[in-house]
């Protein structure tokens, strides 16, 4: 039986959807491949169209102008801070959602994931009513001498709000597929819950956590609506790269396109990293992470 459904090249007649020599049978119908190609084009064409519009002789001066560099620097700094905040809040949330069992759990998950489907502007308005000067917490914060409105902190809050679900979703999925059996074994070996978390749970879901971190970071970089609504727009303080692009478009389309390409490049690097991470446990570890119970 071994090899029948394994990777042996097809020896009989070649049929559509059949296997290519040396490669395992994939079972993908041809029409699916056509649609997949259309999907890939749909993503790539707009990017290509944008690149075609770039004024290359002016590219370097455009992206290295003072407002552009200020916006890029601010974007990278705030995205890094927001991602850190996402990890701080999102890892515990994912753990509680994946491992806990409590009433209202599904409701909590829905609310945590809500920003994924919410227009960011709505998120910005909600944040305004929470942390704004007239907001739920904002009034007390202002009494305590903390002013969030129009500060870089507001940008970080807005980015964290929209990016947190990405981290929670990635990590919760990784936690669920890793299962809790390793943790149970670790506990019976005498390890305290914190030790189990540090030495077993987190290392096991490290790939999921890493891709969650990178996705959150990418989402933070692209954040626009919530920032515009909640934080305002001031060079070096709250005007991140997307806001700078939006503003540049009013007067200088070439600058906007150049900055867009810069943002795309950063995003491509980040997303590319999240799919090219080395496995932390060496070859074959992923397949053995969850042995099937017969």
């Amino acid at each position, binding site marked *: 039986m071994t090899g029948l459904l394994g990777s042996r090249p097809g020896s009989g007649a070649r049929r559509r959807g059949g296997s290519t020599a040396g490669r395992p049978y994939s079972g993908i119908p041809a029409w699916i491949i056509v649609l997949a190609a259309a999907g890939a084009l749909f993503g790539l064409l707009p990017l290509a169209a944008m690149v075609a519009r770039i004024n290359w002789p002016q590219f370097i001066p455009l992206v290295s102008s003072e407002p552009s560099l200020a916006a890029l620097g601010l974007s990278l700094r705030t995205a890094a801070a927001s991602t850190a905040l996402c990890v701080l809040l999102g890892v515990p949330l994912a753990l509680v959602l994946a491992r806990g069992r409590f009433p209202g759990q599904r409701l909590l998950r829905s609310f945590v994931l809500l920003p994924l489907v919410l227009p960011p502007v709505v998120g910005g308005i909600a944040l305004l009513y929470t942390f704004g000067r007239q907001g739920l917490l904002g009034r007390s914060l202002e009494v305590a001498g903390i002013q969030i409105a129009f500060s870089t902190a507001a940008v970080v809050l807005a980015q964290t709000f929209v990016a947190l679900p990405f981290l929670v979703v990635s990590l919760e999925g990784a936690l669920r597929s890793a299962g809790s*059996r*390793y943790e*149970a*074994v*670790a*506990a*019976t*070996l*005498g*390890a*305290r*819950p914190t*030790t*189990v978390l540090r*030495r*077993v749970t987190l*290392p*096991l879901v*490290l790939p999921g956590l890493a891709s969650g971190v990178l996705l959150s970071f990418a989402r933070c970089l692209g954040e626009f609506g919530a920032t515009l609504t909640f934080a305002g727009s001031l060079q070096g303080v709250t005007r991140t790269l997307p806001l700078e692009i939006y503003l540049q478009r009013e007067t200088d389309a070439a600058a906007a396109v150049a900055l867009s390409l810069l943002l795309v490049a950063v995003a491509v690097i980040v997303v590319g990293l999240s799919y090219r991470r080395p496995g*932390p*446990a*060496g*070859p*074959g*570890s992923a*397949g*053995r*992470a969850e*042995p099937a*119970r*017969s």
Partner: protein
Amino acid sequence: MTLSVEAAVAARRFDVSLSLGPAETIAVLGPNGAGKSTLLSVIAGLLRPDSGRAEVDGRVLFDLPLGAGQGAGSWTAPHRRGIALLAQEPLLFPHLSALENVAFGPRGAGVRKRAARDTARRWLAEVDAGHLESRRPGELSGGQAQRVAVARALAANPGVLLLDEPLAALDIQAAPLLRRLLKRVLAGRRAVIVTHDVLDAYMLADRVLVMEDGRIAEEGPTRELLRRPRSSFAAGLAGLNLVAGTVTAGGIRSAEGLEFAGQHDFPLVPGQAGVAAFPPSAVSVFQNEAHGSPRNSFRVTITDLEPHGDQIRVRAGELSADVTPAASADLGLVPGLDVHFVVKAAAVAIYPA
């Protein structure tokens, strides 16, 4: 100085009470869904029973009076119980080397890195896996990984070792090796081993406990229970003839000097201890000295006759044979009669003990 457990889990119709001496190993047998794994989970602290009480050496594991609400009573978390669990799969932490896996228990107990590694090396050597210490779990065979898992469980210095079908996932070559290893390391330890295999019970356990429908159907010393089963499940298992003895070139020589030839899937070393196992259906009964091959032919005295399904089970000391009622009548079988049992060598499995 005992482990005592009383626990009920209503949702699984589980209600069990048992106790275990300080150096006693019990085997838990039973059909699927009988509650064997639930029992281990309750003892390990991975499942909270609705009510019950458990102690080990005077320390309370849980004390949950019937009718007391959630949060009432006392409950010791799994990591404070000193009870290690060895599952069917090794479940070695994939991101740690074999050595770090074994050192995990001591490290968690606060032992310094270096001392924990020394302890781990000792235990790896104990399970003949010293040469594997730097391997990742992904680079170990099933049998090697399970040996490392045994070392890891023992390195945590548990007061009770729980084994959940530790041999079930192993192939036919690896299982006997690990069974012998377990026999060695379980000697003098308190352990509960859940198994499907009567051979495990026979070789590893002092006492057997048979579970059916979430309850203990019967329990007793291993040999006695296997010889005189009262529960239907044990009867189904216990029919197997098991003869302990010394390995010879072609099989096993029993203490009484009987020679059993049989099949084996791994190299046997003459002189070591071994077991021959064969079902009663493979045993034929003759009035006279055997025809044909003289091997596996034994002169025995019938001690007992009892119906077994539509067959008659003929008992002669520790051996038994199944014959049809017609054959039994033809041969005039009665207790006290001397007959010859002849076993087909092809049906005899030889295991090193």
